[in-house]
C-alpha cells in the first residue's frame, strides 16, 4: 500500500472541507479542554497538599474532645512533647457594638504556639502575632467588610468586649468555606471564662495541638492513642492522616468533575461520529472513483482515518492549550473549599493524557462511519445509488466497535474513579441514558413520518417531515444536546431539591427564629423581651443534658468492649439533650407503644419516648431499659413508646422525651422558638436578647437558608462550570450538523422559491423544524434529569422530590431559543442567493 499517496490524498481531499472540519474539531477542543483543565488542576492540588501537608494541621498532632481531657490522657500527651497549644472552640452569638449587629459565630479561644506550621494570615500582617498579648480578637475579613468594620473596632463575645486587632484572611488547614457557617472569631484562651459562655449548655470542644520532638515515631503514638481511645473517647489527627483525608476529599471532587468533563469529550466523540458520517456520505462518489482507478479498500479508509485522526490531534492540541488556560481559572472557583494554597504549574502528564484521549476518542468514534468506506463499491461510479452507510457495516463490525467504545469508556472511568464497580456503573448509566435518547429519537422520527396530519398546512408538514428525511439532525441533536441538558438540569434540580427541604420561608405557622442556650434563670427574662416586642412564643422547651450509663442492664463500657456489638459508638457515648413534656408535638407521630405524659412514682423505671431513628443505632426496642446519667444522678427508664420525628423543621426536636414529673429539678436550660414578621424585627429582637443575655444563641432560619443556598450555590457552580462544557459541545455538534446540511437546505429553499414559495413560507418551515427539535431535545433531557433527581432524592437524599416547574419551563424556553438561533444562523443568506447560482453550485 502506498502510504505516501494515502497521506497526500488525505491532505488534498481535506482542502475544500477544512472549514467544515473545524467545527467537528471544536467539539474535541472543548472536550479535551475540560479534561486537561481538571486533570492538571488535580495534579496541582495533589502537589500543593503534599507540599503544605504540615500546614494542613498546623501541628504534628491534634487531639479533640467534647469535654475536658482526662488527666491520664494529658499525662501521656505531656510525655510526647512539651511544645503544646490548647484551644477551646464553641459557637456563640457575638455582637459588633459599632453597628449593633449580632451574628452566630465560631469562636476559638487560642493560646500561644498554634499554628506551629504555617501562619495565620491577617490584615494587618502583624495582628496574628500580637492579638493574644493585646488581649484582642481576630475576626473573619468577610464579615468585617460586610459590616463596614475594620481593625480598631470591637467585638463583644459573651460578657467581654475585645478590640479587633486584625482581619483573618487565612488560617492554616482551614478552607475559606469554613466561614460560611458563621464568621470565625479568635480570642485569647486566657480569662475566656469571663465571657460567661462556658456555662452548662454550651457545646465546648477542647483541642490540644502539639509538635513531635526530633526522632518521634508517629506510628507508635498513633497506636498508643488508638488503644487509649477505647476507654477515653476522644478524636485525634496527625499530619499523615489529615493529608490523606484532604487528599481523598480532593481526589473525590476531582474524579467527579473529571467524569462530568469526560461526558463533554464523549459528546464530542458522538459529534465526530455523526459529522464524519455526513462527511463520508458526501464522499461516496470520490471513494467509488478511487476504488475504480485501483485504490484498495484499506487505502480508501486510511485517507479518511488520517483526516479524522489529524482533526482529533489538532483539536486535542488546541483543547489542551485551552484547558491549560482554563486551569488558571479553576482555583478561583474552588479555592474557598480547599484548605491549601493552590500552586499552579503546567502538568505535562495531563496535557499528554488529554492529547491521547482526544485522538483516541476521535478515531474510535470516527471508525463507525469509516468502516463503512471499505464496503463502498466502485460500481457507484456507474450508478449513483442512495447508499445507507450504516447498513454497509456488518453486525459483527458494529458489535466490535460498540465493545471497543464501552471498554475505552469504562477503562477511562476506572482510571479516574479508581474503582471498577463505580466505573461500570458510570458506563452503564451513561449507556442507558444514551440508549433512551437514541430510542426517543427513533420514536420521534417514526412518529413524525406516521402521524403528520394531511390536513395541516404545507409549512407544518414540511417542517415536521424534516425531522425524519435524509440528512436529518434529529438523532445527533437529541443525543448530544439531550445528554448535556440532562446533566446540567439534574444538577439544578438536585440543588433545588436540597434547598426546598429547608426553605421554610413563607410558611407562617412555622417558627423562623430559634433561641438556644437560655439558662434556667434567664428564661423568664428572654420570654419577657419576646412578649414586650409583641411577638408570640411558639415553643419554650426545657433541655436537660445526660449520657447513657447502661442499656438493658449492661454498662456502656462493657458494650463498647464487645467488638461484635450491634449498637453504634456515637449513640452510646454522645451527650443527649432531652426534654420533658406531657404530650407529643406537631412534628412527632406515635409509632409504637403508649406515650406516657407524666409520672409521679420515681421508684419504678421512667417511661420514655424514643425517636425511631435511634432504635437501630442503640440496638434497642420497645420495652428495653436504659439507665441515664443525668449530671451524676442515675435515672432508670424503659422505652414505652417510639416516635417518628420530622427533623427538617426549624424547631428543637429530640431523640428522647421524658414525661413530666422527673427532670424538673435537674439543671437545665431552655430553647425557645418564635415567629418574627420581618427580617428587621428578627434582627432587632436578636440584638435585644444578646445584649441582655450574651450567652444566648439565635438561629435565624432565613439566614441558615441563605447560608446553605450560598454554600450549595458555590459547589454547584463549580460542577455546572464543568458541565457547561457539555452544553457547549452539544451546541458545537449541533452547529456542525447544521452546517453539513446547509447546502441541502439552501438548495431545497431555492427550489421551493423557484416553484413559487414565498420567503415567509420558507422561513416558517425552518422555524417549525428547529423549534420542534429544540422542544424535543429539551423535553427529553429534562425528563431524564427529573428521573435522575427523583431517583437521587429517593435513594440517596431520602427526599420526596417535586420538580420546580418554573425552572423546567425556563429551561425549555432557553434551550429552544438556543437551538432555533443556531438553526436559523445556519440558513442565513438563503434568501439573497439567486436560484441559478445555488442550483449550479456543488459546494457551498
Amino acid at each position, binding site marked *: 500500500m502506498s502510504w505516501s499517496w494515502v497521506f497526500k490524498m488525505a491532505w488534498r481531499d*481535506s482542502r475544500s472541507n477544512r472549514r467544515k472540519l473545524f467545527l467537528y474539531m471544536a467539539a474535541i477542543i472543548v472536550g479535551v479542554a475540560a479534561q486537561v483543565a481538571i486533570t492538571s488542576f488535580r495534579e496541582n492540588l495533589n502537589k500543593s497538599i503534599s507540599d503544605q501537608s504540615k500546614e494542613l494541621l498546623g501541628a504534628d498532632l491534634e487531639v479533640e474532645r467534647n469535654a475536658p481531657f482526662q488527666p491520664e490522657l494529658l499525662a501521656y500527651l505531656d510525655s510526647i512533647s512539651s511544645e503544646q497549644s490548647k484551644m477551646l472552640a464553641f459557637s456563640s452569638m457575638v455582637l459588633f457594638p459599632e453597628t449593633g449587629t449580632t451574628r452566630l459565630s465560631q469562636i476559638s479561644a487560642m493560646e500561644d504556639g498554634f499554628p506551629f506550621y504555617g501562619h495565620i494570615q491577617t490584615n494587618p500582617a502583624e495582628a496574628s502575632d500580637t492579638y493574644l498579648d493585646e488581649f484582642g480578637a481576630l475576626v473573619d475579613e468577610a464579615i468585617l467588610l460586610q459590616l463596614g468594620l475594620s481593625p480598631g473596632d470591637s467585638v463583644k463575645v459573651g460578657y467581654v468586649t475585645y478590640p479587633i486587632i486584625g482581619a483573618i484572611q487565612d488560617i492554616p488547614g482551614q478552607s475559606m468555606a469554613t466561614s460560611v457557617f458563621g464568621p470565625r472569631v479568635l480570642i485569647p484562651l486566657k480569662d475566656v471564662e469571663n465571657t460567661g459562655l462556658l456555662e452548662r449548655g454550651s457545646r465546648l470542644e477542647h483541642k490540644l495541638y502539639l509538635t513531635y520532638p526530633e526522632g518521634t515515631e508517629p506510628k507508635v503514638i498513633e497506636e498508643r492513642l488508638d488503644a487509649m481511645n477505647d476507654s477515653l473517647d476522644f478524636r485525634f489527627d496527625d499530619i499523615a492522616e489529615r493529608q490523606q483525608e484532604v487528599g481523598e476529599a480532593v481526589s473525590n471532587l476531582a474524579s467527579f468533575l473529571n467524569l462530568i468533563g469526560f461526558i463533554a469529550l464523549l459528546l464530542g466523540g458522538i459529534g465526530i461520529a455523526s459529522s464524519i458520517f455526513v462527511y463520508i456520505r458526501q464522499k461516496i462518489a470520490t471513494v467509488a472513483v478511487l476504488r475504480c482507478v485501483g485504490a484498495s479498500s484499506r487505502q480508501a479508509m486510511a485517507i479518511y482515518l488520517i483526516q479524522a485522526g489529524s482533526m482529533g490531534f489538532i483539536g486535542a492540541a488546541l483543547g489542551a492549550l485551552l484547558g491549560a488556560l482554563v486551569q488558571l481559572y479553576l482555583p478561583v472557583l474552588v479555592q474557598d473549599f480547599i484548605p491549601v494554597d493552590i500552586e499552579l504549574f503546567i502538568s505535562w502528564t495531563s496535557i499528554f493524557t488529554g492529547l491521547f484521549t482526544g485522538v483516541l476518542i476521535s478515531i474510535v468514534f470516527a471508525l463507525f462511519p469509516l468502516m463503512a468506506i471499505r464496503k463502498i463499491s466502485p460500481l457507484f*461510479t456507474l450508478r449513483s445509488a442512495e447508499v445507507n452507510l450504516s447498513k454497509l457495516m456488518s453486525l459483527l463490525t458494529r458489535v466490535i466497535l460498540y465493545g471497543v467504545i464501552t471498554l475505552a469508556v469504562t477503562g477511562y472511568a476506572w482510571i479516574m474513579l479508581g474503582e471498577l464497580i463505580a466505573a461500570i456503573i458510570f458506563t452503564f448509566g451513561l449507556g442507558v441514558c444514551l440508549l433512551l435518547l437514541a430510542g426517543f429519537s427513533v420514536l420521534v422520527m417514526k412518529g413524525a413520518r406516521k402521524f403528520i396530519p394531511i390536513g395541516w398546512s404545507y409549512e407544518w408538514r414540511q417542517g415536521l417531515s424534516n425531522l425524519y428525511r435524509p440528512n436529518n439532525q434529529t438523532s445527533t441533536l437529541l443525543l448530544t444536546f439531550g445528554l448535556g441538558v440532562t446533566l446540567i438540569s439534574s444538577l439544578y434540580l438536585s440543588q433545588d431539591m436540597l434547598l426546598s427541604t429547608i426553605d421554610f420561608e413563607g410558611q407562617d405557622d412555622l417558627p423562623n427564629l430559634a433561641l438556644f442556650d437560655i439558662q434556667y434563670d434567664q428564661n423568664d427574662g428572654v420570654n419577657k423581651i419576646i412578649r414586650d416586642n409583641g411577638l408570640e412564643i411558639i415553643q419554650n422547651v426545657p433541655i436537660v443534658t445526660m449520657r447513657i450509663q447502661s442499656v438493658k442492664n449492661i454498662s456502656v463500657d462493657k458494650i463498647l468492649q464487645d467488638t461484635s456489638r450491634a449498637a453504634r459508638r456515637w449513640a452510646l457515648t454522645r451527650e443527649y439533650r432531652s426534654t420533658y413534656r406531657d404530650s407529643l408535638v406537631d412534628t412527632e407521630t406515635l409509632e409504637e407503644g403508649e406515650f406516657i405524659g407524666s409520672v409521679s412514682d420515681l421508684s419504678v423505671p421512667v417511661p420514655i419516648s424514643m425517636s425511631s431513628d435511634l432504635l437501630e443505632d442503640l440496638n434497642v426496642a420497645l420495652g428495653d431499659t436504659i439507665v441515664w446519667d443525668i449530671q451524676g444522678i442515675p435515672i432508670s427508664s424503659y422505652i414505652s413508646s417510639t416516635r417518628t420525628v420530622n427533623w427538617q423543621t426549624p424547631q428543637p426536636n429530640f431523640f428522647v422525651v421524658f414525661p413530666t414529673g422527673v427532670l424538673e429539678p435537674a439543671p437545665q436550660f431552655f430553647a425557645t422558638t418564635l415567629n418574627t414578621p420581618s427580617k428587621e424585627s428578627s434582627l432587632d429582637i436578636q440584638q435585644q436578647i444578646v445584649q441582655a443575655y450574651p450567652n444566648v444563641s439565635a438561629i435565624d432560619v432565613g439566614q441558615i437558608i441563605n447560608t446553605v443556598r450560598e454554600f450549595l450555590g458555590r459547589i454547584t457552580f463549580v460542577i455546572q462550570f464543568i458541565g457547561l462544557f457539555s452544553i457547549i459541545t452539544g451546541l458545537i455538534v449541533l452547529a456542525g450538523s447544521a452546517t453539513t446540511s446547509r447546502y441541502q437546505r439552501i438548495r431545497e429553499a431555492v427550489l421551493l422559491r423557484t416553484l413559487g414559495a414565498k420567503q415567509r413560507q420558507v422561513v416558517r418551515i425552518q422555524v417549525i423544524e428547529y423549534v420542534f427539535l429544540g422542544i424535543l431535545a429539551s423535553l427529553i433531557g429534562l425528563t431524564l434529569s427529573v428521573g435522575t433527581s427523583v431517583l437521587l432524592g429517593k435513594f440517596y437524599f431520602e427526599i420526596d422530590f417535586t420538580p420546580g416547574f418554573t425552572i423546567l419551563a425556563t429551561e425549555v424556553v432557553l434551550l429552544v431559543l438556543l437551538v432555533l438561533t443556531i438553526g436559523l444562523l445556519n440558513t442565513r443568506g438563503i434568501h439573497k442567493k439567486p436560484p441559478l447560482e445555488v442550483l449550479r453550485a456543488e459546494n457551498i
Partner: protein
Amino acid sequence: MSNILQVNNLTREFKSGSKILTVVNDISFGIEEGTSCAIVGPSGSGKTTLLGLCAGLDRPSSGEVILQNIKLNPLSEDERASVRNKHVGFVFQTFQLVPTLTALENVMVPLELRGEATKDVRKRAVQLLEEVGLGDRTHHYPTQLSGGEQQRVAIARAFINEPKILFADEPTGNLDTETGDHVEELIFDLNQKEHTTLILVTHDLELAEKCDRIIKIKNGLVDSDITKEKASVTK
C-alpha cells in the same frame, strides 16, 4: 490475435422485493487485443451492468470474466482494484472527477496509487493534459471546468496508467454535439496511439459505428454482434 477480454456465460441477477430480475442473461463473447468494441442497446437493456462486470466493478451471479488472462471471479475486491489499476482505464458519462483535487492531481491518482515517483508522474500527467488541450488548466478544480473540459481530464486520467483496455460508459452522453465530437476524437486518437483496447457503452449509433465491432444488447441478451470486416451475426 488473443482475446484481452473473455466473457463466458455471464449472468447478473438483482433481487427486487420478492422477484429476481435478470439484467444480464448468459452472455458470452471475447474481445481481441487492440480492437474497439461498442456495446449498444436501449435504456435498461443491461449494457452498463455488462460493462461493470467486464471491468471487474461488480461480481456476476454466474459465469466468468477473464481480463488480460486473469480470472476476475476468484479475486477479492482489493485484488480486482489492483488489476484495474494496472490494466484498465475508465471514462464515465458523469466524468467522475474527485471534486477536491485539481485537474492535474485527478490525472495523477492512478500512478500515485502505485507509489511511482511524483516527478515522473507529474510530467506524464502534464503531458497528457496538454495532449487533451488542457495544458493551461492543470491547477483548476473540477467545478472551475466546463463539462467537456472535465471529460477531457477524465480521458487523460484514463490513459495515464497506459491501460491495456479502456472502458467508456456513454462518454459523450452529457456533452453537446460539438464537444462530444471532440471528446470522441480524443478517445479514438489516444486509443490508437497507445494501442489500447476500447470497450464503449453507448446508445449513440453514430459513435458505435466508429468501432471495429458492435455488440447489441436487448433484454440482457446479445441481440447482435457485428464485426466490421466480416459481418457475422449471432442471435
